[in-house]
């Protein structure tokens, strides 16, 4: 294949070489010429209907739409000639014919493609004397506000919905003057990615409903950070003003989230200002009362002196940054306690080897893979961005997908459902199943193991057989590792990384201890999603929301939410990413590692670091695995278990995508979404 053959093209007198298959627009970008556009978007199919990207091509009597014209050898393109200027002015005049002049009351104002380009190509006055058309607004659900009169029919939203999100409800109805963009029968858009429609809209037709009339873009402080709503670690930009997070936008990262983020990542932020813990509390006479930090620490000090390793347990929550987990571990170490639960659910991994519990193919690997088997995974709910990535491969390269799960989930792509019994894995391994052929044909086979397996007793067995299958069919080599665990929570991988060398305490051990009435003292580090009964214990809750953990607590230490602290998060690929502080935590709340550091001093077991840099230095020196290993392909998972499949049927657990953490549970936007989608 000569896919990599380059072609030469002259743009504004500069000769450049671009890969074959590029469009003229891409070539112009490569040459540094900026081409205005509305309908063209890199991640979507080419529509060529806005005509804004017109350029002059030698020997062509008319200007050409550069987004739709493939570049070919020897083309001579001019991007700023008189003809081009005139053509763009003309296109702009047509676009503005029906566009209202309501920029002062439009939420897109200040970050509007049409506004910007009208500044450069607009005539400044109109020659149109008839009345402008008006279009009734459409209902697109609780997240998207529509002002359809502003629509310029670029169809980006339609293409995104059809191609990326996989909801084929959006379309353009009518024709000519009467074209309207609408959802089928005006139903709400039922996608976990619908917020991206707002980003894609180049004008103010689709704007964010929760953010309507809240702020202007130039008033906002922009902080680049990492999302914690799932284990993907989407890159985000937090826009804040006056100590309040006003919106969250995606930040481009081709290796992780591309240009998208899920609706939960984007819209759960109103939960950040509700039910917040802003001061320490201590339960006095069965009632939580506001106290000072010193008083709270004093209560803990008086209790902790009486307990022993046996009856104390620490629980790490789902959205805790590595630094806090590390400080938590160090505190327990100093106190000679070693029962720390890294996650709140019964999830079975073998932790010896890092490849055992990571998403080894990497998210980018999903673009490369040519056969995918999902086992007990519902990626649409667990990580919507990952699901979009699978769909991308499915759409563009016809990826073949099979799934073993409790039920055939609606994943927005077609796949072969193989039932809910994981025993068929053995027959796949023995080449007795038709799926074996698919594995055999594939160069980059991939297995994704999800929650339903990990929570099941057969977890390790499945992991082991999957490894054997991959080994047999070439799932491990220098360039590929097809074994993947799909984690659900931002802190799971970090917690395993940090805690596995210190404590092998797990969920079933805790259940055992609780049954034996051993546990007397529980330290919840941001943990709100546990299902074990600790009502008889002395409970410390350190976290940011008054959720389940705080209700049970005897002492509450107010921590910071992910937008309010610097921290690092290890995503499901094992990639460590750093979040930045956008705003300060409310009231007396503090960053989590500083709370643990201060507490340690009070308990007379001072931790060995005084600032974040020192902490990180120790953390990374004691745990080299925290670093993102680009060459992790080389290591194969090693799973030790007697492969006997005691249980083999996967069970369905009802999950609500929109409410999975204290923040999203407090968010009224998320509540509305789950009502509409539920």
């Amino acid at each position, binding site marked *: 294949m000569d896919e990599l053959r380059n072609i030469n093209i002259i743009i504004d007198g500069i000769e450049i070489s671009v890969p074959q298959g590029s469009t003229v627009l891409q070539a112009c970008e490569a040459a540094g010429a900026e081409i205005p556009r509305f309908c063209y978007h890199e991640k979507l199919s080419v529509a060529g209907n806005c005509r804004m990207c017109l350029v002059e091509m030698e020997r062509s009597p008319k200007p050409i739409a550069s987004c739709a014209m493939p570049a070919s050898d020897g083309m001579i393109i001019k991007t700023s000639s008189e003809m081009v200027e005139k053509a763009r002015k003309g296109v702009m005049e047509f676009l503005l014919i029906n566009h209202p002049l309501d920029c002062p009351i439009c939420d897109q104002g200040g970050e509007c493609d049409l506004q910007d380009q009208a500044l450069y190509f607009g005539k400044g006055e109109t020659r149109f004397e008839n009345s402008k058309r008006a279009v009734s607004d459409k209902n697109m659900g609780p997240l998207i506000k529509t002002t359809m009169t502003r629509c310029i029919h670029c169809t980006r939203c339609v293409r995104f919905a059809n191609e990326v999100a996989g909801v084929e409800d959006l379309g353009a109805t*009518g024709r000519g003057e009467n074209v309207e963009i609408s959802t*089928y029968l005006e139903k709400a858009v039922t996608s976990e990615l619908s917020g991206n429609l707002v980003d894609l809209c180049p004008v103010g037709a689709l704007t964010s409903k929760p953010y309507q009339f809240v702020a202007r873009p130039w008033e906002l402080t922009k902080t680049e950070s990492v999302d914690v709503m799932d284990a993907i670690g989407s890159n985000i930009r937090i826009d804040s003003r006056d100590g309040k997070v006003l919106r969250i936008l995606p930040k481009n990262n081709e290796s992780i989230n591309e240009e998208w983020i899920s609706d939960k990542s984007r819209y759960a932020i109103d939960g950040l200002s509700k039910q917040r813990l802003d001061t320490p509390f201590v339960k006095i006479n069965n009632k939580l009362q506001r106290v000072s930090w010193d008083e709270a620490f004093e209560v803990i000090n008086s209790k902790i002196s009486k307990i022993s390793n046996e009856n104390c347990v620490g629980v790490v929550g789902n959205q805790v940054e590595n630094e806090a987990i590390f400080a938590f571990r160090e505190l327990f170490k100093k106190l000679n306690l070693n029962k720390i639960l890294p996650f709140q659910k019964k999830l079975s991994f073998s932790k010896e080897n890092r490849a055992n519990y990571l998403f080894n193919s990497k998210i980018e690997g999903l673009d490369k893979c040519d056969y995918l088997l999902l086992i007990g995974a519902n990626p649409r709910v667990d990580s919507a961005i990952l699901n979009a990535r699978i769909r991308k491969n499915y759409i563009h390269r016809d990826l073949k997908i099979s799934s073993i799960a409790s039920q055939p989930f609606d994943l927005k792509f077609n796949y072969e459902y193989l039932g809910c019994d994981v025993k068929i894995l053995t027959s796949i391994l023995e080449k007795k199943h038709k799926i074996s052929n698919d594995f055999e044909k594939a160069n980059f086979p991939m297995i994704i193991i999800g929650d339903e397996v990990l929570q099941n007793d057969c977890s390790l067995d499945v992991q082991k057989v999957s490894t054997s299958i991959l080994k047999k069919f070439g799932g491990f080599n220098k360039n590929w590792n097809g074994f993947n665990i799909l984690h659900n929570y931002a802190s799971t991988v970090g917690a395993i990384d940090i805690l596995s060398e210190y404590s092998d305490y797990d969920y079933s051990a805790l259940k055992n201890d609780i049954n034996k009435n051993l546990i007397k003292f529980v330290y919840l580090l941001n943990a709100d999603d546990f299902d074990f009964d600790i009502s008889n214990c002395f409970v410390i809750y350190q976290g940011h929301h008054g959720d389940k953990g705080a209700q049970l607590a005897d002492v509450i230490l107010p921590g910071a939410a992910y937008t309010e602290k610097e921290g690092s998060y290890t995503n499901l690929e094992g990639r460590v990413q750093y979040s930045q502080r956008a705003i300060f935590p409310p009231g007396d709340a503090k960053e989590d590692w500083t709370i643990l550091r201060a507490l340690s001093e009070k308990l007379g077991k001072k931790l060995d670091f005084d600032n974040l840099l020192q902490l990180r230095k120790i953390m990374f020196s004691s745990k080299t695995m925290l670093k993102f290993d680009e060459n992790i392909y080389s290591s194969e998972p090693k799973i030790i278990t007697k492969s006997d499949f005691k249980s083999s049927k996967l069970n369905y657990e009802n999950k609500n995508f929109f409410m999975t953490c204290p923040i999203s549970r407090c968010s009224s936007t998320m509540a509305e979404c789950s009502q509409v989608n539920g």
Partner: protein
Amino acid sequence: MKNEPLKAENYKLCNIDRVKVDKILDKYPSNRKASAVIPLLHYVQKKSNGWLPVPEIERVAEILDMPYMKVYEVASFYTMFNLKPVGKKLLQLCHTTPCWLRGSDQIEKSIYDTLKIKDGETTPDDMFTLMKVECLGACVNAPILQINDDYYEDLDYKSTKELLNKIKTKKNIKPGSVIGRKSSEPYDKNGNVNVTK
């Protein structure tokens, strides 16, 4: 709401002939079934009293494995698909320039005087619907009125009135030129065809 399809409550799907549907589908490759969307919509529209209620659009979508929205986009794009109920006789009056110059305004007036309906309206007995349309492609015999599938040509105020009254009284009418032209041969000022030199 111009583009919104009419939600038909308790609508009973019309009977369609599966053999005919398959005949339409056979004209296209089986992996390009969606190509049959326009012929199929035409067929269904004919069967369901000349218009396409939502359930019919959805049925076509299901036959063709297409998203509802895609079929609806097609149905709303082409003016020959009616998204609202029409009368038993659909009067499509051409008002593009040649017909207009030859007096389509008079025909419109004649229709109004006879049936009391304007563009887009239906008579109370659901018998007639008037729709003003663009060029019907028979300019040589302008002005044209299309009634269901047939063209009526060379009309004027009087002949239109007669034509409509004949339909009303269930008398037989003959499609084509009302002044007796066979095709587009010339005729004189008095309307006499067969002008010989």
